[in-house]
């Protein structure tokens, strides 16, 4: 495996690439006289972003809250379900086709019926869409982690005459944490995207998704992209916070792989 790259490389290279890409974009828009409704220039997006930063912020709060609630619900249910599936393998076998289906169907397809089931004037449906999207990676990865418990640790617990709850708490759960975080890392930005796409199918106004579409509907693409920028930053914040949480919770284990 490669050694971890040096600091200038990890920071400088992506920043340079980003700056280059944005510069090319700006240049193309200016040089080719691309109309703003085809593609707004980075400068106009940045200008728009800074001038409407407060409404981007309030929209982000709405969508971010939905994503956060969805992330929490999905993660908690996913973890609990994985623990149940480990303790009672039959539940795992029963739910296998449902989980398999849920992991491949576009969750957003459920958004319209969820609005009907939980109320079109509430954020609940969006939170559930996010929660469902989060549930799958968290459940699958946690389950894998729980089953990963090394035989030597299991033997050790038996040798200590530990109760099954003691064994679960001392060995199985902590051992599953890195896997849980693999799931959470995938889930974090997924939660934001799902909550945002959920807005597409109705519900109270105010979120980023709705703001993007209504700005675009009146051809105000600079504003639309300012909101998109907000969405990107929001997704990034979720991802980074999850990453940071992982570093805090598990400072002393082999680095787990995965995005």
């Amino acid at each position, binding site marked *: 495996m490669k050694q971890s790259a040096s600091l200038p490389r990890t920071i400088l290279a992506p920043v340079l690439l980003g700056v280059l890409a944005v510069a090319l974009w700006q240049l193309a828009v200016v040089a080719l006289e691309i*109309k*703003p409704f085809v593609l707004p220039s980075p400068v106009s997006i940045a200008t728009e972003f800074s001038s409407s930063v407060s409404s981007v912020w309030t929209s982000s709060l709405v969508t971010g809250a939905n994503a956060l609630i969805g992330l929490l619900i999905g993660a908690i249910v996913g973890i609990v379900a994985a623990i149940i599936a480990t303790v009672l393998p039959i539940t795992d076998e029963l739910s296998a086709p449902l989980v398999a289906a849920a992991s491949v169907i576009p969750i957003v397809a459920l958004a*319209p019926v969820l*609005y*009907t089931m939980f109320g*079109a004037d509430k954020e609940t449906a969006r939170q559930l869409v996010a929660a469902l999207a989060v549930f799958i990676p968290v459940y699958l990865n946690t389950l894998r982690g729980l089953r990963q418990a090394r035989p030597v640790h299991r033997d050790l617990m038996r040798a200590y005459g530990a109760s099954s709850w003691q064994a679960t708490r001392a060995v199985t759960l902590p051992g599953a944490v890195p896997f849980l975080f693999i799931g959470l890392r995938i889930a974090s930005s997924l939660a934001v995207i799902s909550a945002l796409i959920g807005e597409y*199918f109705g519900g109270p*106004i105010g979120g980023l998704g709705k703001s993007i*579409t209504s700005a675009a509907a009146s*051809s105000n693409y600079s504003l639309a992209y300012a909101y998109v920028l907000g969405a990107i930053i929001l997704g990034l914040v979720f991802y980074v916070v999850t990453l940071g949480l992982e570093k805090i919770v598990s400072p002393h284990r082999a680095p787990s792989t995965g995005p």
Partner: protein
Amino acid sequence: SSSGSDDSTDSASGELTPVTLQLQWFAQAQFAGYYAALDQGYYEDEGLDVTILEGGADIVPQDVLSGGDADYAISWVPKVLGSIEQGAEITDVAQIFERSATTQISMKDKNITTAADLAGKKVGSWGYGNEWELFAGMQKAGVATDDISLVQQAFDMNGFLAGDIDAAQAMTYNEYAQVLESVNPATGELFTPDDLNVIDWNDEGTAMLQDAIWADSAKLADDDAYADQTVKFIKASIKGWIYAKDNPEEAAGIVTAAGSTLGESHQLWMTNEVNKLIWPSTSGGIGMIDEAAWKQTVDIAMGTKNETGATVISEEPPATAYSNDYVTKALDELKDEGVDVEGADFTPIEVTLKAGGE
């Protein structure tokens, strides 16, 4: 325009000029006239080979037009005014719908009969620029956007039916019918118009102009062939709409054949309601843009604030934003051919909606 270069106007040679029309939404009877014109060969008669492009949730027809990917587009005036201010150079060349179809409906027991009654209620809207008449009506009645809780409506009316939305936005030709096609749990029968209160923005005085045919301003000015073609396109389209007026059943069938999956009774209802928006024409013939109506639309667009405090436009649109030149020519030609372009004797048919619009 891929084939042929200059001979596009040369309809005598039998070569048809390819023309694309961008709709605002999926195929449905809202666009019955264009589909009828296509089906009945009216476009072909004018030497046009028309392709109709359907819309989608994120398709902004006026941007497709100004981006050069369509020759004409159907869109609402208030939505386009915003785009024009953002730099789109397009012109309203025929105002097909003379009246607004947007209403705010509510269950009788909610007692919402005027815009003023909306205060403190959960009010639905789709957004996407469909909300301006509502806001204008509220503003006129002294209801601030903060006084209501605004809910974005989904692609269905379930939110309204379940009571999540007190007053829902409904087009007379579509969502209103969707409600009437649903079972009223209280009676076990379908809802009837008696179960509902309707706020009609035409009556409230905040109606804005809706479906219009838009064309590229620059090409209209510089490209004579395009200008001629525009007249032809308007003329054939108007003939389509006249066909829809006279043959609503057939027109509905044509739209369904074009791929709409709406139920039969719903499709016919929509055709009939759309006809009511056009006929009889009081502006001197279908497609003529009424100065007063245009001004009302522009005034509302400049004076109405949405929930974020923004207005549609901040200044008067340029003069190129609309032109009666082309529709006048088209109407003249039609009148010469003895066609009735005002439909003064128009009488809508009676449509009975079935459950689910079947």
